[in-house]
């Protein structure tokens, strides 16, 4: 809670530049002498600049990138800038921070607003100095007149004016001369890092409110489980227990101290008997289930769902991925405080406004009686348990008013209840002509949905609480995200130019296992499948897989990227196949409209055990104009490691009755001693618009690993996670 409303209104001598993003609701910028909703950049007389972004910091460095753009636009030092956390009381409504579009969407708007703010101040300086606007400029806020420093600055101008000026960008037509980028394009150190290494309270977990009590939920063993016998055992009389709450199949406990809440919740989960539905699909045959279960079939590319043929040499393959957990390192939590009819929620969910609407609907409150304040937790990589924890904390707070209630999910709660990235199955076939060109391509993707966010009143039934309470809300039907972004079909359309292409998606009509968006959505498995199959086709004709791709590409940026990747990875020096050392390639343009990433992986497969050791990854990324190169490199590195972990280690375990991955032992991820060397190269594209990078490496990494394993030991693994078997090595 950096800026309280009061401080905000009391600022003396300030300039606020307001704007809204295309597609985001325009909010009133200036009420009677106030600067209410919709403010974006507050330039204050004391030399501080506060930015109110609608996007949240998820540990991806978005805050620093926005600060860089504002610093350049205002021509000030980045150290003057601080970022407010999203708060439905005063931040703009930009819905969710997702799909790596933050910089793409907000970046240009922030830069322009800052430039307009600077213009406004320079105009004021010019009239005060009796000079021509063209003769004044500024350096870090200090006004310069015909190249000479003056005693005037933004800050003295604002203090002397002693007014709260509001510039509404949408109403101002300013012809902006592009000022030189100073911070933009440089690897400015992230603003949030020092506080994190000195433990200065960066996280939502660090909020401690006076008189705060601790809550735990008593999770049912599985979805659709119902309470058979409600028996609280000794929980009620346990030390520190303040209240046990039951609403239908929702059970929670509030206690004075955290450990007391934990012990009471354990006692309750032992004493309550549940009826388990036992209706989960067979984990061993989950991909058969995906293609057999009733689904909505639609054509993504091509005229019909019928396969096409060209008479060439036919090849086909089936690829699968399992369910994956977001597995944030911090289990979800939230704080909720209900007093005098007003509910305040602190949450680390990705969208405060949608959260507010959905919680208000679930709890039957007026939206304007609910306030949601964002504070960051550990990385989430999509829709995890954060929204659910916020809704549950709110429900508990209504039952336990007047003191703040802190709800913490345990590790097992997070693993068993977060909405996972869906399992997928892909059938692909292609015809090759005599010149090793693809003449027909048929592609069918089978999946559960890749979104189930409680985004509004109609989707509030996606909350676990809404499903468990006595009067449950209906669970919304699975929803497909339309192209060009796509959900299950994200990146299902190959970027390659084939003579004929047919792509069909099959969205399962039911969701027996909770699913929602996980970094990259369907792109991870689609790129894995397309890029594995391209390698198989090249292998069938014994041609270089990189050259085979180039021969099918029309997009110049894609071709340049692959050429550079060949160069920096030393592709032409790769060893011959079957020796135990493998090199593999994977490439995609995320969503076919965002950043391009190509990855070459080098690894070894031990002949005696099939054990895979990741040695080195070389990536090239084209993200258009880059605001913060080191930030982009860091996101690509992180994406490669996370995807490598999904690809060789991760698989959500479940039985007929319940999810059985409940801790890090039953859901292992890549460890420090398994981390490869990573090298990321950036294409210089300063004349192109900025593209998000957060999810672009997921698919290419998976394919690069699969292709490297095949190259190392001639085992083509089409089912994720990749596990190789012992084999006989070709002695080179």
């Amino acid at each position, binding site marked *: 809670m950096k800026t309280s409303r009061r401080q905000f209104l009391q600022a003396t001598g300030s300039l606020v530049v307001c704007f809204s993003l295309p597609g985001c609701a325009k909010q009133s910028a200036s009420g009677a002498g106030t600067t209410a909703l919709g403010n974006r950049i507050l330039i204050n007389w004391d030399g501080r600049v506060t930015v109110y972004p609608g996007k949240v910091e998820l540990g991806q460095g978005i805050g620093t990138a926005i600060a860089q753009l504002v610093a350049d636009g205002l021509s000030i030092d980045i150290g003057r800038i601080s970022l407010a956390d999203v708060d439905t009381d005063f931040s703009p409504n930009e819905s969710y921070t997702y799909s790596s579009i933050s910089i793409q969407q907000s970046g240009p708007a922030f830069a322009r607003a800052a430039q307009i703010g600077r213009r406004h101040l320079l105009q004021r300086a010019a009239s005060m100095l009796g000079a021509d606007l063209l003769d004044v400029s500024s350096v870090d806020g200090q006004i310069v007149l015909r190249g000479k420093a003056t005693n005037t600055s933004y800050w003295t101008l604002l203090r002397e004016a002693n007014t709260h000026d509001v510039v509404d960008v949408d109403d101002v037509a300013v012809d902006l001369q592009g000022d030189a980028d100073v911070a933009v394009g440089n690897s400015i*150190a992230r603003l949030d890092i020092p506080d994190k290494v000195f433990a200065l309270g960066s996280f939502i977990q660090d909020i401690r409110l006076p008189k705060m009590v601790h809550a735990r939920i008593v999770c049912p063993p599985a979805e659709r489980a119902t309470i058979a016998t409600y028996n609280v055992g000794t929980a009620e009389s346990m030390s520190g227990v303040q209240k046990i709450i039951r609403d239908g199949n929702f059970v929670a406990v509030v206690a004075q101290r955290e450990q007391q809440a934990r012990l009471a919740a354990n006692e309750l989960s032992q004493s309550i008997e549940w009826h388990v539905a036992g209706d989960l699909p067979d984990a061993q045959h989950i991909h058969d289930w995906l293609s057999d279960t009733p689904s909505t079939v639609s054509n993504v590319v091509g005229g019909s769902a019928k396969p096409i043929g060209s008479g060439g040499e036919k090849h086909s393959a089936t690829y699968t991925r399992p369910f994956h957990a977001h597995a944030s390192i911090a289990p979800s939590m939230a704080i909720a405080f209900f007093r005098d009819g007003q509910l305040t929620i602190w949450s680390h969910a990705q969208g405060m406004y949608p959260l507010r609407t959905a919680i208000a609907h679930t709890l039957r409150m007026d939206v304007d009686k609910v306030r949601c304040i964002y504070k960051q937790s550990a990385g989430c990589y999509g829709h995890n348990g954060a929204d659910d924890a916020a809704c549950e904390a709110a429900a508990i707070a209504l039952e336990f008013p007047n003191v703040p209630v802190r709800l913490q999910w345990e590790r097992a709660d997070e693993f068993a209840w977060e909405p996972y990235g869906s399992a997928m199955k892909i059938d692909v076939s292609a015809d090759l002509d005599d010149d090793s060109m693809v003449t027909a391509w048929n592609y069918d993707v089978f999946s559960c949905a890749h979104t189930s966010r409680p985004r509004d009143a109609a989707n509030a039934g996606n909350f676990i609480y809404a499903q468990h309470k006595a009067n449950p809300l209906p669970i919304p039907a699975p929803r497909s995200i339309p192209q060009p972004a796509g959900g299950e079909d994200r990146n299902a359309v190959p970027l390659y130019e084939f003579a004929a292409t047919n792509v069909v998606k099959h969205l399962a009509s039911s969701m027996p296992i909770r699913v929602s968006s996980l970094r990259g959505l369907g792109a991870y498995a689609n790129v894995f499948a397309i890029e594995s199959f391209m390698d198989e086709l090249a292998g069938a004709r014994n041609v270089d897989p990189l050259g085979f791709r180039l021969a099918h590409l029309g997009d110049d940026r894609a071709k340049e990227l692959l050429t550079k990747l060949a160069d920096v990875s030393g592709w032409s020096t790769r060893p011959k196949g079957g020796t135990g050392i493998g090199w593999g390639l994977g490439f995609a343009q995320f969503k076919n409209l965002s950043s391009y990433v190509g990855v070459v992986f080098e690894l070894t497969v031990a002949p005696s055990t099939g054990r895979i050791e990741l040695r080195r990854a070389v990536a090239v990324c084209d993200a258009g104009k880059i605001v913060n190169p080191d930030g982009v490199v860091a996101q690509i590195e992180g994406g490669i490691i996370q995807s490598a972990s999904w690809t060789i280690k991760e698989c959500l375990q479940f039985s007929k009755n319940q999810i059985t991955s409940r801790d890090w032992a039953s859901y292992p991820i890549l*460890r420090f001693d398994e981390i490869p060397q990573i090298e990321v190269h950036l294409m210089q594209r300063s004349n192109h618009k900025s593209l998000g990078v957060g999810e672009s490496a997921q698919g290419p990494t998976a394919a690069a690993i699969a292709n490297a394993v095949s190259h190392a030991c001639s085992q083509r693994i089409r089912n994720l996670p990749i596990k190789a078997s012992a084999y006989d090595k070709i002695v080179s």
Partner: protein
Amino acid sequence: MKLAFTINGQEIEIDVDPDTPLLDVLRNDLELNGPKFGCGLAQCGACAVSIGGKSVRSCVTPVRAVAGRLVVTLEGLGTADAPHPLQQGFIDEQALQCGYCVNGVIITAAALLDRNPNPTEAEVKSELAGHLCRCGAQPRMIRAILRAASSAAGQK
């Protein structure tokens, strides 16, 4: 029950159920932000603190076990004005994404550098094998630790 121990150089006495996890006491009673709750199962390392110079998982350590001991958290290693070489190394290498795992990684690395001021990359990796980072910031953290080791060596 009253318990006395030293936290970040300060002797304290608290009245608490001795079975309470040390992590709860540090976070909730002493309001320290360094150690984090990640699993409560000794599996992730987010909660690590230094007890008598060793990296220990505070989520599974009952507070009674630290009676009379020296406990150091991330706050106690250094400050913005006087950073520990590891903290400086993490800033210099921009060695984190979300930063939630960083507490444990630095605490364990500090114990390693105390024991072995000049570790190899392989030693750093194996020492940290019990620390999970979901964001994939490990390559930068490894660089930061090696940088801190060489800068500390340079100062001696």
